[in-house]
């Protein structure tokens, strides 16, 4: 693994771990949701690093997986926000 790949992999794993920590440990739901997004970004960066072929030609499959992953995470985040707002408004009335 070239040093650059090493760096990117390290960053990807770090994001993944930090995101997991935030998702699991933070008390406020908004922070948990952001944690989940950071965790997702970690996984997607790892996929992108994997896509960098040795001879420079990128592998489209991980890229497609990342696009699908991003869209799913956006949808989940949208639903999460709606649920957070529902818990707030439900607990008010």
């Amino acid at each position, binding site marked *: 693994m070239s040093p650059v790949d090493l760096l990117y992999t390290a960053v990807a794993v770090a994001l*993944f771990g930090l*995101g*997991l920590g935030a*998702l*699991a440990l933070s008390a406020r*739901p908004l922070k*948990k*949701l952001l944690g*989940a997004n950071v*965790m*997702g970004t*970690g*996984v997607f960066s*790892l*996929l992108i690093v*994997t896509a960098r072929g040795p001879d420079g030609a990128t592998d489209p*499959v*991980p890229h497609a*997986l990342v696009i*699908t*992953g991003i869209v*799913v995470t956006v*949808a*989940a985040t949208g*639903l*999460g926000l709606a*649920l*957070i707002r*529902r*818990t707030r408004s*439900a*607990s008010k009335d």
Partner: protein
Amino acid sequence: MPTAASPDAVLAALVVLPLAAALGTLVLPRLAPAVATAASWANLALVAFAFGTIGGETWLAGWSAPLGIGLRLDGLAWVFLAFSAPVFALAASAGRATLAEDGAATLWTTLIAGVNAIFLGADLFNLYVGLEVVSLSAAALTAVGAGAAAARAALRYLFVGLGGSLLYLMAVASIYRATGALDIGLVASMGLQGPALATPLALATAGLLLKGGVAPFHFWLPPAHGNAAPIVSAALSAVVVKTALYVLLRLWLDVAPQTALADAAPIFRALGLLAVVVGGVAALRALRLKALIAYSTVAQLGYMALALGFAAEAPGATVAFVAFAAAHALAKSGLFVAAGMIAKANGHDEVPRLTDPGTAYGPAKAALAISGGALAGLPPTGGFLAKWTLAQDAAAAGAWWVAPALVAAGLLTAAYMARLATAMMRDPPENAAADEGGPLRGWSALALASAALLLGFLGAPLAALVEAEP
């Protein structure tokens, strides 16, 4: 198996049909509950028809592995479909009011599509997307038509789902990075070992145990299943948690070599026993009816983990795993629907104060009794078949402690089921409102519970299906 219809059409239809119904619920919002119920029954018919295509597979979009995604229907997958479909169908018929809530019918049909996609899925990333479809639909359904507590439980369930899915996705990414393949069969043939196998397996297992609600990752399950509407609780506890455990089974049986499963066996056995004890004791002490039933799910999932713990040494343990899953799904969904009716008739759901809801609730009470027996593993129910198979296989593998453990756990289950039995015999105070119980719902619950009873007699065919091919 003579494939009357080509697997291509049937397997694809199992996913396309619920999705088409989902679109139907959007186009005809007022008829949405009817569309969702009809789709659930059509799905059941399709699953029955699909029996002819067991062993078939189809490469979607015409591309085979490694580029394309495959759908595969083996005996094991068909059994999981075969106990999920009746739950959806009968629960839909029993829960028209819930399905009339805004968005509920759409989410119900996407949930069915997601569940079918997972049971048929043969591609690791595709299973991730399937798990997301199921998690988001289930989390949203938990909050539909329910109060603040359900909304909070749904939010926590969403976070658990997200975390679990991303753990699983990281595992898929690592596997792709090491093998360049995503199809389960292909990845298995790559012969991963050492850290390249251990790390993804560990991550995926953690994620799936979290989504499957196996103790000690069960904290989110009782609030979610306890606060959702009855038919949603039925679908969640009977089918949704099983999808995660199904993927876990696929990983450990198909992707990982048998030696890996043998190494991990002690962990699964320990988790299983922990879950059985934690769930059982909590159910014994639970005040609210639905909490009791939800904790019972935590305990029953423990049996499945225990069975997985023996799958390496005794192939019959896989049959036990499937039998536990099927018996629990049918009995628990019947129990949730019946409990929902009985709680409504009593006007509250505190177990110590529950009383006999009256003769109009005959079918619901019968469902409660039969499903209680099935969960406690009393003969001749499906629960007994599962326990018997596991005990015999474990004994054959020399683990003599399993039989007493299962019997003791059965007693624990019987203890908290007896709390419900006592309630049903308690005469109501004179002024109890004799609410005319919906006839349909009671019979749906009884049909589900009776299916759990009938399962007890299908030991041989079940084993043949599950062990059909390697």
